[in-house]
């Protein structure tokens, strides 16, 4: 329980250093979602698959690039805990990219219908 609380605190403290960026990303997402929801031709189901592919693509980039971004390398992970941590980080990045890509793809697919 303490470790979970500590992890939440770590995320909080990290986010304090990136607050404007996080607000900006959230604001962009809200704006895109608002535009997409108001657009009568938005096709959410058609946009889901390409959005997932987009998320996976950027998640894979994060998986490969994150060690280098943290003064390490892809040869550093030594056992399953390392790979699980790196996978979790990649999943987080991929999820954010999916969420931003979804309204864009949904509007794009609707526009081509």
């Amino acid at each position, binding site marked *: 329980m303490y470790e979970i609380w*500590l992890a*939440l605190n770590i995320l*909080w*403290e990290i986010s304090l*250093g990136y*607050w404007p960026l996080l607000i900006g990303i959230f604001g962009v997402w809200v704006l895109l979602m608002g535009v997409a929801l108001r657009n009568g031709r938005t096709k959410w189901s058609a946009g889901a698959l390409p959005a997932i592919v987009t998320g996976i693509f950027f998640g894979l980039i994060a998986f490969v690039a994150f*060690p280098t971004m943290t003064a*390490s390398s892809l040869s550093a992970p030594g056992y399953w*805990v390392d790979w699980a941590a790196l996978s979790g980080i990649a999943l987080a990045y991929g999820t954010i990219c999916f969420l931003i890509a979804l309204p864009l793809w949904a509007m794009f697919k609707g526009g081509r219908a």
Partner: protein
Amino acid sequence: MKNWDECNEKPASALRPDSARRAWIKALGAIPLSVGLGGIHPPVSGALKTNAHVVIAGSGLGGIAVANRLSRMLDGVQITIIDAKEEHNYQPGYTLVATGVWPVSKVRERNIDFQPANIRWIRDMVAGFEPESNTVVTARGERVRYDFLVVATGVHLDFALIEGMDVAAIGQNGLASVYPSPQAATATWAAMQAFVKSGGNALMTLPATPLKCAGAPLKMTFMLRDRLRQAGALAKANIRFESATSNVFGVKAVNDNVLERWGRLGIGVDYQRSLKAVDIGARKATFQLAGGQSIVLPYDFLHVVPPMRAPDAIRSSALAWQSGPFAAGGWLEVDKSTLQHRRYPNVFGIGDINGTPRGKTAATVKKSAPLVAHNLVEVIKGRQANELFDGYTSCPLITREGSAMLIEFDYEGRLTPSLPGIEPLQDSYFAWLMKYSMLKPAYLSVLRGRA
């Protein structure tokens, strides 16, 4: 390898020109995390009404963490912090600065940004403790009476025991030391870079006294070797570790693991060699051997780890251990389980000053700050200190840039990983990531009294 340009000493007030951004971050940081996360509350007891006066000697991690906790746990408490230091240094980051991984700005903060509101801050050093009269005396002669005292002074780096040593000369003529300050860490990186270019003999020292962050001398050795490898300069350099004891680390499993690695990496180790003198200009170090004779070794790079002891104010007071293994260093005489003073029950100790078997690390404070605050509140209530500390300490032991071992252990020297699946002696990217990205945020949350 990176070259960081932030080598100029700046006052803490000049560190962050973007005062609006810092004010924004400070305001957000003061918001209880429970608000931001919709109701997840830290495990602290309810506020007790009291008009007790608590004096906290020292404003490092331990002092400020306990101050923040007590300010929430005690309604009406008067808290006085005594420390002349305006700057707050993230000391666990010094090894990253000294080996070129971090810029120095990441280890420099300001105490005022983390202290609780409505406390009295005496900007002076403690010169003496008079526990018989519940009084602390400052360097300027102010006498401060207390009801309860938390000693959080940290250690004294006894460079004076090394004849010829000059902290101001760190960074020149191959002289290095990660411990004294952010500036020394930056200068150590400069010395390391010069050595990697020129090659030669590197001597890494370890004293016989207890020391804060016992892993730091090992991390510096591993990273020096890695910087040489990265530069393709291994063939022109020789690294030897000169230990004043019969080992290089106090936990046997870790000690043996490190020695096995160093054997493979070509790092030699000598034992029972205590650094006694240094001729900085001539680059010669004098070591005293077990039999009392001396040996003079030339060096091109010398990493000095100074002997450490309690500050004079504790060592010369009645608060220090009077006998036993911790008496020589003048360490604070606390019960190792409750961290309450063994003879003055209204006194507690936190952090490096404690005369306990192990644990002079930030991780020790992380685990013990809630306990000290809780036990102090229990004593204020008229009860016994009832939470017990197991001596937890932790060290992300860097083995090369980008990889580390996550070592956690207790008073008995047993490896005690916190998370399931963690293998303490395994080279790990996750352990490195913790050191590089997560431990400072964890430290800040401990500092704010949240974790």
